[in-house]
């Protein structure tokens, strides 16, 4: 039993939709059977083998995908187990609705990475687009479990409508970070954009760099020592990013959004 490596053929045009390629589904299949799996290229159904060279090899239950020169959407979407490594950039919905396993992208990820995921790990070594760990379009609920770890920065609305789980962004998070959060933790090491925690009901926003002023709807609740922070560091484990880079204990706490009851918090370690 081995894993698979997918190398795009020259001339793959249009976005490729890779919903069907979860390692769990590939288990026990030979390379020929994998080549017959139907994926969508430029909106049309195409056997995988027509668009990619499929090679066996590498670790069991691991799919290595090279994405240079084209956009691949839906990588690992809905996956329950196994491991996908993307060598290059990923398109939209990387690891969206993930239930287990790990998706790692060595480059950047598009919008809705880890959106509505319920478990597992999404690791992005470059930047992430908008709606990181947020809700899928038209859905009421963002991520409900698992870990998203981004070495670069994140676009707007990271963790929007999030319900449980952890998002770590080493760089900056865009505007409306943690908007309408119900629970869970978003930890942004760099700055965050305007309207952080807008409409937040519960949950924690951990900001490595203090905002110029408390976001609208938030009030200062003073500096305190938080056992929670060291527990969080221990709980997250790897890949912990900036969260694991220094000991955290004391932090300033802003509570809000007061319009939603003020049970959410922004913690700014000191």
């Amino acid at each position, binding site marked *: 039993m081995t894993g698979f490596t997918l190398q795009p053929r020259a001339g793959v045009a249009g976005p490729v939709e890779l919903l069907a390629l979860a390692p769990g589904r590939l288990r026990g299949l030979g390379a020929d059977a994998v080549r017959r799996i139907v994926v*969508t290229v430029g*909106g*049309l*159904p195409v056997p995988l083998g027509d668009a990619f060279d499929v090679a066996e090899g590498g670790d069991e239950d691991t799919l290595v995908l090279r994405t240079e020169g084209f956009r691949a959407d839906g990588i690992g979407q809905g996956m329950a187990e196994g491991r996908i490594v993307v060598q290059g950039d990923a398109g939209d919905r990387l690891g969206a609705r993930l239930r287990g396993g790990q998706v790692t992208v060595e480059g950047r990820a598009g919008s809705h990475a880890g959106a509505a995921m319920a478990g597992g790990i999404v690791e992005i070594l470059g930047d992430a687009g908008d709606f990181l760990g947020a809700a*899928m*379009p*038209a*859905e*009421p609920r963002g991520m409900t479990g698992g870990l998203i770890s981004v070495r670069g920065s994140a676009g707007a609305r990271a963790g929007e409508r999030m319900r449980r789980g952890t998002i770590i962004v080493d760089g900056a998070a865009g505007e409306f970070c943690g908007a309408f959060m119900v629970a869970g933790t978003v930890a942004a090491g760099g700055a965050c954009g305007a309207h952080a925690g807008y409409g937040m009901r519960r949950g924690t926003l951990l900001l490595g760099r203090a905002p110029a002023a408390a976001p609208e709807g938030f009030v200062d609740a003073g500096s305190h020592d938080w056992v929670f922070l060291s527990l969080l560091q221990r709980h997250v484990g790897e890949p912990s990013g900036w969260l694991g880079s220094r000991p955290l204990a004391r932090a300033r706490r802003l509570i809000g959004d007061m319009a939603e009851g003020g049970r959410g918090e922004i913690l700014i370690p000191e």
Partner: protein
Amino acid sequence: MRIRFRNGRVYDPANGREDATADIHVLDGRVVEAPGPGERIDEEHDLGGRIVMPGAIDIHSHIAGGKMNLARMLMSEEHHATIVPAEGACLCGSGIVTPSTHVTGCRYAEMGYTAAFEPAMLGSNARHAHLEMADIPIIDTGGYLVLGSDDLLLDLLARGERPETIRDYVGWMLTATQSMAIKTVNPGGINAFKYNARRLDLDEAGPRYGLTPRAILTALARAVHDLGLPHPLHVHGCNLGVPGNVATTLDTIGAAAGLPLHLTHVQFHSYDTEGDRRFSSGAARIAEAVNRTPTLSVDVGQIVFGQTVTASADTMTQRGTAPLAHPRKWAAMDIECDAGCGVVPFRYRDKSFVNALQWAIGLELFLLIEDPWRVFLTTDHPNGGPFTSYPELIRLLMDRDYRLARLAEIHPEASAHTTLGSIAREYTLAEIAIMTRAAPARSLGLRDRGHLGPGAAADVVVYDDLPDRRAMFERPRMVFKDGVLVARDGRTVTVTKGSTHVVRPGFDDAIGRVVARHFEERIGIKAKHFAISDDEIRGGDGPVRHGARGQG
């Protein structure tokens, strides 16, 4: 191009044919008499005793317009989950309960439907609705204009204008919006909602104009009658979904005072208040009223268990049901101060007492209304369920054993509260052919549709006579639209363009000045820009015009 269908068992109720073994001849998209000997036949289909019917016509299905687009956006997760890739002839799209235009046309054609009518076109959205209908492939369409909460009408009525003025206004609006019929939705209620009324009974004066829904309904029914529109006033009455609304519905029938009326999705208007839960079936009383009122027709608006979305111009009712939304999201909006719109996703569950009883009430109505010429097969797509559930519905009507088996699965108290189990009636194929073909065509004044006599459009559907009626109606062997084979074995094979049907009654166009002044003062665009010209219909093809009654 001459086509012959040989050895078919023809169900053509408009021409008095039931299970008649006959040949059907088609020349260039029209049904013709048998040609003389020696005439060349280009294409021949030996049907070997298969069943032949005209193309089916859906008299009430929300397929286009502002609220459907809103529903598509609100239900966008459905579109992500149900992408239908382009395949062969089909360009397709996505969606089940809010299908995209191409999916709408293909799914209808694949079920043997060759026409479907959008029953709630708002004046200010009519242009959009027509553009969208033009994008629906294969099937014919048309729209019913919603009136009854529009300020100019209410203003004219409140000022006591003469019935002729009302008639001319209705005629002007119908013509300007390229409509096929007039519909009224909770007459006066949508307007009253804007003045904070959350309920308006048939004889309750509205807060702004002091008009009762009864007065508005009667005035519109009379205007429609005086204009000679083939289809009577299409009524979505007051108090939709409210237990006890059976009394309102019976009063509404009385309000017509002998004028023809079509009550739509009457299932939602047939609720009584008996029993511990204060919710029971009023189907028997409604059916009895329909049976003794020959000027009345209804469509049922049957509910189907499962996820759907309700979309209606009835802001008042939709705001009321918004807390029941599943998934929990909804949208309601005013439309240009002249109408309303509410979209509420909903899941009908067979284990819910209320939903199960709604299901039974719909079937009771189908089975207790005796005249299939006056009851039409609808789910009020998508409000009761998607139109793709019609084959299942036909099986429920035609197969009592199947019906009883389904009845045994629903909420036990609901099955105890319905007489459905004791109704022995099973619809015949001839009755299905009437209610889905001949009767809608007659009611809408479509003279060359819904039948297979000489001169009719060659909308021909060939079915295998399967004992499982659902399977039979789900996948017709062949479907021809205007003489072109569009679907085979439930798959689209050719994508053709349909037509849009409109009615052009005569009226005194002096009313145009009144309308123009109203547009100038209140609406902010010119009336001549509001009016839709023929060359805007179907990408320049123009509409298929029908005359008023007696105009030929």
